[in-house]
């Protein structure tokens, strides 16, 4: 494979989640993290999953990633059943999960080294391309602990993009960052999504973040984890998190969210 092929903008993937159920047994009883959840994610769609903590949105992401298996139901990636992790679906975690024994370049190279058909010189070139894309080409030899929180997540993004996956799964990747850094990354992720067309499933508990990034926002409710509502966000990109139009969407979503969380509160009281 040549470097051009390694960097080619491959077609994003279609994901079908079909009747997925998953429960966990803890010492306080059984929690139904996902209850017969079905979703279709189109090729190249930016889908956001929103909900209070414990509503199963991260579990769903892990199942799509192949890190968890559902109790019943199945996940199809481009028509093929997901049985484990695959290079077509890369994950970005809330904790950056970068390896401290490698420098920045080494971390981005980790997944590339496992990708066949490239020699090391080409792998390095690919890694450098993505480090440049996230604006960190000057830091390729830095140690991980020397980077700020935002920079670490940029490296994690470059690492996830480097093997050229068709799907990017993001599990609250910006939750631990400060507001200013987060705003910068909203811009970056939209720009990168334009440049490297991927199907993105993005988990967050931040409604505004979801409205800013998603083509579509799915609202989850906890125990049993179900999809409660669906919102289409028809705003031009790049979107500004502080815009008034965006606020309208996020207010609408927040109202719906409050609607069922309050209702659940009264149900519990009865």
């Amino acid at each position: 494979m040549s470097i051009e092929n390694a960097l080619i903008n491959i077609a994003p993937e279609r994901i079908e989640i079909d009747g997925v159920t998953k429960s966990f047994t803890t010492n306080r009883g059984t929690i139904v993290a996902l209850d017969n959840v079905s979703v279709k994610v189109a090729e190249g769609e930016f889908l956001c999953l929103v909900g209070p903590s414990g509503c199963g949105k991260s579990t769903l992401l892990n199942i799509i990633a192949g890190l968890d298996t559902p109790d019943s139901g199945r996940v199809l990636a481009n028509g093929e059943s997901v049985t484990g992790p695959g290079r077509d679906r890369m994950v970005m975690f809330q904790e950056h999960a970068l390896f401290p024994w490698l420098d920045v370049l080494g971390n981005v190279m980790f997944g590339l080294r496992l990708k066949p058909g490239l020699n090391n010189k080409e792998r390095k070139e690919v890694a450098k391309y993505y480090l440049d894309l996230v604006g960190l080409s000057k830091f390729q030899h830095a140690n991980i602990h020397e980077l700020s929180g935002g920079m670490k997540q940029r490296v994690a993004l470059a690492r996830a993009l480097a093997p050229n996956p068709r799907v990017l799964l993001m599990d609250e990747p910006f939750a631990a960052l400060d507001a200013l850094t987060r705003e910068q990354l909203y811009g970056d992720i939209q720009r990168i999504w334009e440049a490297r067309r991927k199907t993105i499933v993005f988990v967050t508990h931040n409604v505004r973040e979801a409205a800013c990034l998603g083509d579509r926002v799915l609202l989850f409710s906890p125990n049993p984890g179900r999809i409660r509502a669906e919102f289409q966000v028809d705003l031009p990109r790049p979107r500004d998190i502080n815009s008034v139009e965006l606020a309208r969407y996020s207010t609408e979503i927040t109202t719906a969210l409050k609607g069922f969380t309050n209702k659940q509160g009264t149900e519990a009281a009865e």
Partner: protein
Amino acid sequence: MIRSLSSIVFFLTLLLAWEFVARSGHYSPVLLPSPLNVLEYIWQATCDGTLWVATLVTMKRLMLGYGLGLLFGIPLGLITARFRLLQDTLGLLALGVQTLPSVCWVPLALLWFGQTEAAMLFVVVMGTLWSVIIATNDGVRAMPPIYLRAARTMGSKGLHTWFKVILPASLPYLVGGMKQGWAFAWRSLMAAEIFVTILTGFGLGQLLQYGRELLAMDQVVAVMAIIVVIGLLADRLLFSPWERFFHRRWGTGSMK
């Protein structure tokens, strides 16, 4: 510069105080040799080769026993950490046996192997192995599970995960374990050399023991000093560079 100066001043003061007490005449020179006597012995024994030979014999035994301890201890520690069954069996055994002071292995070794090199090797390996298993095991278990999940999503599995994720992630602990293993190996070897008298080699421990039998306290103290110096050198040359490297990479440790 200032730091090495303070070390030098400290040790010079210690030596001077020792010389002073020795010269005061309160204690018999047979029991408390002066630093000068000790230095004289070291000089003499270095010139006639006694010290060189003894140090060489001891180091050879140490390296062999320590090497075997690491060779088996590290892989065993890695697998006890990853498989629950081994954790509950071998891991528990290691945890128990490592509390046994290494000198306790000597009677057993003498009865099994007699006054032989094998007895000595057995004691050193027993003294090293278990603590290396425990340190490696602890290191692997301290690894954040997110590393494994991240590695899996990038297509790492099997041996690749072992060599490229689990092993490097636990390296800082491994070096700690190797350091501890080294200290344990030293202790066991000295115990072995003092108790096991054999003709195949005359090590530092035996030199120490003969010093006692001949009432040559200058020899006893000199050998003790040499053991200390070797220990310090090993720490500075073998382990410190690694630890410094890990502190720089991982960003751990505030001590310079």
